[in-house]
């Protein structure tokens, strides 16, 4: 009997906890708290946070190869299926109309990708700090945080640096949630009051045919120039074609509702399974969090500077603030641009103008992902 009680005690969590697991459960709880209380990307951070808690329970092995999270991870993240399906859903949810109405603004979505590649360089440079050790693949996976696009970051990290996936996903979604805090100071620092006051002319109406052709054109260009980006870009285009073609309403609706919801739950839990103490509680995670912040800031700044160039080139027809939306973080960054614009001029509605660079940023970071996967992967 005494032995039985000892055996029982030895099977409790209390007996088996390692300090790292306790900390990681607290981290999971913190993510859930931020998601609920502060509205930090709750659709992803609640499943990720909860998955993180489940992954750090001793004995249960939920993130192990035979546990639910391990099975989901193996089936959906290792294969890339989950992020690609999410991207299909994103395509089905995205209206590229604002981008098509004024395609030249797409260049802002290109400029903002500078954040990614600058961070890549920064991550490699971090190797100079003792205790940090990032391979080229690690650095690329971290840099993609600067794309400000969750599924792209998860897809790239799962291919190049699965061990860092947990930290990268957490950083990516956290900074996306922090966009309203991170971006405004940079926007105000880099633009003048006069620039911020710039009004933009109303967007032209885009015809249905243009909207149908766009995903096909985008896919063709990507196929011709950068096939390694076509898994991501292809699924984005497929989802968008379902949306715009007008003849498969039921598939489009399923892609942007039930299917993306189901996959979001699974993806979040799977990503959470990578919040294991031994991988997460390391100097690298600190580096990732720092580099992610750098990536967001540099991306924002690059977009803004390109915005200033367009402001001049077009004779003040473009408000440079919308350049900040080029990082993607759809639609948060576009809303931030709108808000800062309104502060400068209460009649200045930039939202739809910022949506063009905003969705261009999604394409831009998928292209950047393609380059990284092609050269390093």
């Amino acid at each position: 009997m005494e032995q039985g009680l000892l055996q029982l005690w030895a099977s409790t969590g209390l007996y088996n906890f390692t300090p790292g697991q306790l900390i990681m459960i607290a981290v999971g709880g913190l993510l859930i708290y931020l998601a609920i209380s502060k509205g930090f990307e709750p659709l992803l951070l609640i499943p990720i946070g909860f998955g993180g808690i489940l992954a750090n329970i001793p004995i249960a092995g939920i993130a192990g190869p035979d546990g639910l999270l391990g099975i989901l991870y193996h089936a959906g993240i290792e294969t890339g299926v989950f992020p690609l399906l999410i991207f299909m859903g994103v395509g089905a949810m995205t209206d590229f109309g604002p981008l098509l109405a004024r395609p030249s603004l797409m260049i802002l979505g290109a400029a903002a990708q500078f954040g990614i590649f600058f961070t890549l360089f920064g991550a490699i440079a971090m190797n100079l700090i003792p205790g940090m050790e990032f391979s080229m693949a690690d650095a690329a996976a971290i840099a993609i945080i600067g794309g400000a696009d969750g599924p792209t970051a998860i897809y790239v990290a799962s291919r190049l640096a699965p061990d860092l996936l947990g930290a990268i996903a957490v950083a990516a979604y956290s900074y996306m949630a922090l966009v309203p805090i991170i971006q405004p100071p940079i926007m105000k620092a880099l633009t003048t009051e006069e620039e911020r006051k710039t009004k933009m002319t109303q967007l032209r109406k885009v015809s249905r045919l243009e909207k149908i052709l766009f995903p096909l054109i985008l896919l063709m260009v990507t196929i011709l120039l950068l096939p390694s980006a076509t898994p991501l870009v292809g699924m984005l285009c497929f989802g968008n074609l379902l949306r715009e073609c007008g003849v498969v309403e039921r598939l489009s609706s399923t892609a942007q509702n039930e299917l993306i919801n189901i996959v979001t739950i699974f993806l979040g839990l799977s990503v959470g399974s990578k919040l294991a103490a031994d991988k997460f509680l390391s100097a690298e995670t600190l580096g990732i969090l720092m580099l992610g912040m750098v990536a967001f800031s540099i991306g924002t700044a690059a977009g803004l500077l390109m915005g200033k160039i367009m402001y001049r080139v077009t004779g003040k027809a473009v408000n440079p603030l919308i350049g900040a939306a080029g990082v993607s973080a759809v639609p948060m960054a576009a809303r931030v641009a709108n808000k800062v614009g309104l502060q400068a001029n209460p009649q200045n509605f930039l939202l739809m103008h910022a949506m063009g660079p905003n969705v261009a940023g999604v394409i831009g970071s998928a292209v950047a992902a393609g380059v990284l996967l092609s050269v390093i992967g």
Partner: protein
Amino acid sequence: MDIDALLMQSLQLLGLGMGAVFIILTLLIVIISIVSKIVPVEVSPPPALPTQGIDPAHVAAISAAVHQYRKNR
């Protein structure tokens, strides 16, 4: 690989990556601009009715209700 080589490679990637992003998005701008000129302008649909977004059945019900009321007076 030593750190210098890594730094060099990451610099190359910076150029390569930003190059690819700009080339592809610029090409898209060009093609979309051309397409937008070729594609015929859509005849705009008839102006939206004020009841848009409300189910016809409700409109019918409301009309009926008001009609009924008028009659009952």
